[in-house]
């Protein structure tokens, strides 16, 4: 488990590593991004992209759809993650523009190398798409130690898209967030601000707190 990291350290590194992705962002801009995603996804006319060309958007939509695929429940596509990222790249995640600018051509090259005849990720079969993404991801894992120390601009493309996709899928819907709470429905999180017990299966019918007997308490103190 040389690569394993305790949870507490994860929170710390999450703060450090992920902040590189989200650096210089401001919350209002993020809210705007999420709301933009809502509107764009709801709009009947094809939305205008702030950052991506129509072709690039297709590619990003295809990647996010492999990161959180659509099956019997909604995926990244239904959650409007593409629009969340597009808007983000001109606002709160502006530092990641370079990652996308450099990553998209890299993606084209990789697709062409692995599947001669096309350079479009979105034209591959889902299985082929996964193969391409694995080629990015495996490289990413090997390069982890080095990557964590590099500047935000050098962040690995796939890792950045992955983090943006997860954030766009699970961000609190109240602040814009995942379209129609799609992400929270998938993970089983109720969209409420207040909860009351019983909360789950095991505290249902809880008889109430019982103090241990006097003898037990005395016994415990002796130990």
């Amino acid at each position, binding site marked *: 488990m040389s690569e394993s990291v305790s949870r507490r350290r994860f929170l710390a590194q999450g*703060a450090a590593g992920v*902040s590189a992705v989200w650096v210089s962002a401001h919350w209002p801009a993020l809210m705007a991004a999420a709301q933009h995603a809502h509107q764009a996804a709801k709009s009947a006319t094809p939305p205008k992209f702030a950052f991506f060309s129509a072709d690039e958007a297709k590619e990003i939509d295809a990647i996010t759809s492999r990161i959180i*695929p659509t099956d019997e429940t909604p995926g990244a596509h239904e959650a409007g993650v593409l629009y969340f990222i597009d808007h983000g790249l001109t606002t709160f995640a502006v530092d990641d523009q370079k990652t996308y600018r450099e990553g998209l051509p890299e993606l084209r090259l990789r697709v062409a190398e692995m599947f001669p005849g096309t350079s479009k990720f979105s034209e591959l079969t889902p299985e082929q798409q996964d193969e391409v*993404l694995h080629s990015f991801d495996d490289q990413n894992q090997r390069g982890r130690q080095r990557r964590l120390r590099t500047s935000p601009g050098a962040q690995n493309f796939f890792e950045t898209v992955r983090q943006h996709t997860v954030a766009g899928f699970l961000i609190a819907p109240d602040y814009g967030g995942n379209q129609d709470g799609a992400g929270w429905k998938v*993970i089983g999180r109720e969209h409420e601000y207040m909860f009351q017990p019983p*909360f789950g299966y*095991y505290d249902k019918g809880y008889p109430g707190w019982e103090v241990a007997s006097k003898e037990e308490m005395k016994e415990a103190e002796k130990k």
Partner: protein
Amino acid sequence: MLQQSRYKASEEVDFVIIGSGAAGGVLAKELSTNGFRVVVLEQGPYLTEVGFTHNEIAVLKHHQLTNHPELQPTTFRKTPQEQAKRQPALVYGRMVGGSSVHFTANYWRFHEIDFVERRKVGPISGTGFADWPITYADLEPYYTKVEWEIGVSGLADASPFDPPRSKPYPMPPLPVKSGGVIFERAARKLGWHPFPAPMAILSQARPGRSACVQCGFCESFGCEVGAKSSTLATVIRMAETTGRCEIRPNCYVHRIETNANGRVIGTAYFDEKRVAHLQKAKAVVVCANGAETPRLLLLSANKQFPNGLANSSGLVGKYLMLNSGPSAMAVFEHPLNDYKGVAVSRVLHDFYELDPQKVGFYGGGGLDARFDLTPINFALNGYDMGGLPPGTPRWGKEFKAALAHNYTRTLEIVSHGTSLPVESNSFSLDPDLQDAWGLPALRMTYKDHPDDLKLGAFLRDRIMELLDVANAVQKWASPVEEQTFAYHLLGTCRMGNDPKSSIINADHRAHDVKNLFLCDGSSLVTSGRGQPTETISALAYRAADRITALAGRGDI
């Protein structure tokens, strides 16, 4: 924010308090209530309930409520022989209310043993293990005072290991969660003694403050309904009501100024626009936390105090203790929905005081059942991190399926244990790296004492034993390893009677500077068992009494 009194920087106030957290907030209230004119200089912004959100990205990724690793970079090394490397080394609340705003709100008293353990256990090689100059009995009235004044939920006498108390908790415990029930049942099967977690979160409303609504966003977040008993939601408002206390946010204090007589005359700080000011004061109380307090003393070095202020012992910044504590996670058959409610509902203290003769090492700790991962943190599992089991794919169909199944069924058991005071474990000024203000960055040096790691392994084994009995479907433990990141910042300007081995006396007065007081996590002599906030606030109530008495005698 209430209408506040305003002081000019050139006006000499009675006290400047640096920092407004678990200690600074309490001292602001106590000293202003006692009639003193007080200015609190807080590094972070003045946010209130309306400024708090459930927004994971703003809070966790953008450091809305905490120190910023880009503006305030830090370095880390394990031993003084190593060259420190730039990496995030610590987190603390950076706002009015400090870490008491974003903490999980576990609120444990220290036990009697925590103050006198050295004389019971004897010396431990490689450490500066020492006893406190005060005892639990000295602090008990202040533990009671803080519990009643800010509002703490709990059940007195529910744990056979609880220290004596003069009053019960002011309100009943918060509702038990599914994770708490699992923990309680399994622990009892093992003959252990779980009890309702004492939490600084209201189970009953108080004037101007809602009872907890169980929204589940406690750890790392500010409470939107005022139910978390931060100093922001409680004593800071009381301080402002006196009309004698000004809370001045966005003030980055970088130097304590002294005169030819070796007395403090005020504090130099940058305001939000980085304009320099000097706030004059008759006395200064530093409550900037266990990292920033020693850093400020070291930054305040001058001809008269070449090693830093209050540092004739050379121990400022040393004997850092972080508390040790591995954790384990588990998945259960049915949904727990532990994302609802406060993080922790059951704890146990059966291993608080282990017998070194029996276990072969010094230490002790407590366990709690919790869930404190927000959705994005849970899902960004990375490499054996976050909330998903090790080896879970990081994307794709299986990733999504794991999220869908596990999010509601996951529980974590966390241990909280002792750290021994090792002299080389420290905060110091990094000679090479500067922060955004051009000041030397914090350098952390830390290597867990071997006994701390043995304790970690012991507590991890107890956690796995409990999860076995609890019939967890799947369980995995975090590795027991040397720590490289700090949440609890303890012991770096410790209290003691001997100026050669401590920084402050039992009145929190610096041994070397008569009108300088230090009170926060840095004052602690031992680490306790992992939940230091109540002790920090209780110390602040006591310090305020001592300082007021000294001022009354004209002895400051």
